[in-house]
């Protein structure tokens, strides 16, 4: 089982920043991230994960009270990852970088450098940017259509991996006696000329330790899933129920055959949000405490973000009125939620509390063994190959997971007790990367 820890602001639950033990200013304190990463490494997790979108979103929508939320400020992931490499030794480090608002040469150079600094522990969460607020920070009036973004992403990956292959193994004899620093015959100009990019190469950084860094993707649009099947090594999936998880899992894996890839070449990581206690009652109390910290205005804003209309002015403890959902990022999940609202006669407050408890991710309230049970079920019945553990609050939620759930997973033989592999590629079960220029037998890994 593969386990990642997203260090997502102060946690995934909207109320988390108001808990007494959560550092409300942590998003700008390197020590907050360092502490979370050290906890994850103590638990032998595979990687920490930094999601990203280069904007403060929805600031101009009066129905979304961003001023009462904690998710707006961040540290830029590539810079943060370089610093985290200094305070960790074994754990993988994954940063999100968009192919829409960056240059492939810069990204290749940055990631190659990070991979050297971290000794082969870096992964790239590749996104194409879904947010209009982000687009407007880069001179666009609206988000480019998904087809064009994914077409650019494909070419972008070709260029980046091509640049990583600029130098063959052994290209730098650095021989003081002969004075030969690098071997010209082992250097390649990429000379890429495509629709979006013209890049000569070579990369001016030596081949990164992993040669090709693992690529992680996320999303559930048709374009995103197709890209995942074709190019990704792992995917962060969105699934609020095991049925949705299995359907997503099968969908991605079924798409892979036409690219000549075996299903195990993509590791599916489901998002799970554990509300964890030593007893079920303690777990329930923790969730209740967090739910009580969501201000009603914030809850109504959450509904807005998930396709519900502006419900300001309604009694939040009254029944959800007749509503027509708009279309947006989470259509399938919003539709599922509305069905549940109707089936269970939920109030407005109960509806946003359902979102906070796990909307596109799977929320589970219980003891370590309850949480391990569901993880085992997802893992063994084709819903996930691993998880991104979305702690509702940080760093305490990560410490609880590592101290309580990890030992339980280890006891069941589902998770490692020691780090063995050196690189993130190896940990994700990937074979050593082979240069596109490797032709002779001896250059191919055994």
């Amino acid at each position, binding site marked *: 089982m593969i386990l990642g820890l997203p260090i997502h602001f102060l946690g995934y639950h909207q109320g988390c920043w108001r808990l007494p033990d959560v550092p409300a200013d942590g998003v700008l304190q390197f020590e907050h991230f360092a502490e979370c990463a050290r906890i994850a490494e103590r638990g032998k997790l595979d990687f920490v994960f930094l999601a990203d979108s280069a904007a403060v979103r929805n*600031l101009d929508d009066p129905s979304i009270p961003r001023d009462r939320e904690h998710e707006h400020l961040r540290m830029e992931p590539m810079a943060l990852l370089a610093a985290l490499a200094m305070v960790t030794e074994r754990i993988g480090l994954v940063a999100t970088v968009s192919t829409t608002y960056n240059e492939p040469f810069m990204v290749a150079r940055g990631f190659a450098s990070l991979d*050297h600094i971290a000794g082969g522990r870096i992964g790239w969460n590749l996104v194409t940017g879904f947010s209009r607020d982000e687009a407007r920070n880069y001179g666009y009036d609206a988000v480019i259509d998904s087809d064009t973004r994914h077409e650019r992403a494909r070419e972008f990956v070709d260029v980046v991996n091509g640049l990583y292959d600029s130098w063959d193994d052994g290209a730098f004899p650095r021989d003081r006696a002969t004075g030969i620093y690098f071997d010209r015959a082992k250097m390649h100009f990429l000379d890429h000329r495509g629709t979006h990019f013209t890049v000569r190469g070579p990369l001016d950084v030596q081949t990164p330790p992993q040669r090709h860094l693992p690529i992680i993707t996320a999303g559930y649009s048709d374009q995103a899933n197709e890209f995942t099947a074709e190019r990704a090594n792992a995917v962060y999936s969105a699934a609020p129920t095991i049925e949705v998880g299995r359907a997503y899992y099968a969908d991605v894996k079924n798409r892979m055959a036409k690219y000549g890839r075996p299903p195990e070449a993509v590791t599916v990581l489901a998002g799970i949000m554990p509300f964890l206690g030593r007893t079920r009652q303690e777990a329930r109390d923790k969730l209740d405490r967090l739910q009580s910290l969501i201000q009603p205005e914030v809850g109504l804003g959450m509904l807005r973000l998930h396709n519900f209309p502006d419900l300001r002015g309604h009694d939040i403890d009254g029944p959800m009125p007749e509503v027509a959902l708009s279309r947006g990022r989470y259509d399938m999940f919003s539709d599922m939620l509305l069905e549940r609202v109707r089936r269970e006669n939920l109030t407005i407050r109960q509806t946003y509390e359902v979102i906070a408890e796990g909307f596109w991710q799977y929320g589970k309230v219980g003891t370590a063994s309850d949480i391990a049970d569901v993880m085992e079920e997802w893992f063994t019945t084709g819903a996930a190959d691993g998880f991104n553990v979305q702690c509702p609050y940080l760093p305490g939620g990560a410490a609880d997971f590592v101290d309580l759930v990890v030992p339980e997973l280890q006891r069941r033989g589902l998770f490692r007790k020691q780090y063995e592999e050196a690189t993130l590629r190896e940990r994700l079960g990937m074979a050593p990367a082979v240069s596109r220029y490797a032709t002779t037998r001896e250059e191919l890994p055994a």
Partner: protein
Amino acid sequence: MMPLGISLSAPAAVTDFDQVLAAAQAAEAAGFDFLCLPERPGLDPIALAAALAAGTERIGLVPSCSAPFHQPYNLARRLGSIDHISQGRFGWALQPAPPLPEIEHFAHLPMPASDIAVPRAAELAGIVAALWDSWDDDAFLRDKASGMYFDRAKFHWLNHEGAHYRVRGPLDTARPPQGRPPMMVLGGTTIAHDLACAAAEILHSLPRHLADARATRAGLQRGLAEQGRSADALCILAGIAPTSADVQPGPLRVSETPAMIAALMGEWRDTGAVDGFIIHLSDSPEAITQVAMDLMPALRERGLRDALPPRSPLRDRLGLHAAPSRYAA
């Protein structure tokens, strides 16, 4: 105190991170104010600065980047983050026009004609600095009891629509600890001096002798006045290298004894030709320590340096004024 930096300027690519880390730690232990990480083959300077921010405690970190290859929003958040990580020890050097071989990796981008390289880089630098002011210093209440995280009256849309960039803002990180991490320009060319007068706070100059340094200063003062900036808005630091150093050509080479070098530095400083110096060295920690052991006592004797400078923001160490937000009353 006379600002004193060091520039890692080995002629060959440096791809061994441990060597760079050891060099940075040696420079820090020797009491240098900051470390320049120039653009050169090898590890990316901005990535290096971010890693070194966590691997050092006192020394300033100043990586270089080339203006045409970066989006201002990306630069503002990445560089601002490093100022947060380093707790105010960050500065950056902006190169308006990169050399030809680099341009070939970006041939799909429209490259600015040479006559607009400076205005374009100045616009970029202006946007970066403006994005850093997106949130007022006291914007964040983080009041757990009332549930108010920030004050809506204290952030600013940028809505920049310029000749070269459109950026809406606000930035997704808070004001850097220094407010405005200082920007450096590597001098020696007319366009570099134009950009320095328009937008920089540090000029890394490369004078050949004292008269040259004085002429440069005089020219820059005129340029600053034309831009409506005061003469002390730009800190001028001259690059010098011990003759034994294995570094790229550029800096003035000095071959005197440590006492004579210290005397020369004092003279240049006292005549107002420069404000301080940047010593060019290879990435060898031993060479850095050796130079420091030779030179620092001589500088201390002349009152040009303290024993070990305090842990303070890079702006302070360079003698730059505080940088309040453009929106501060």
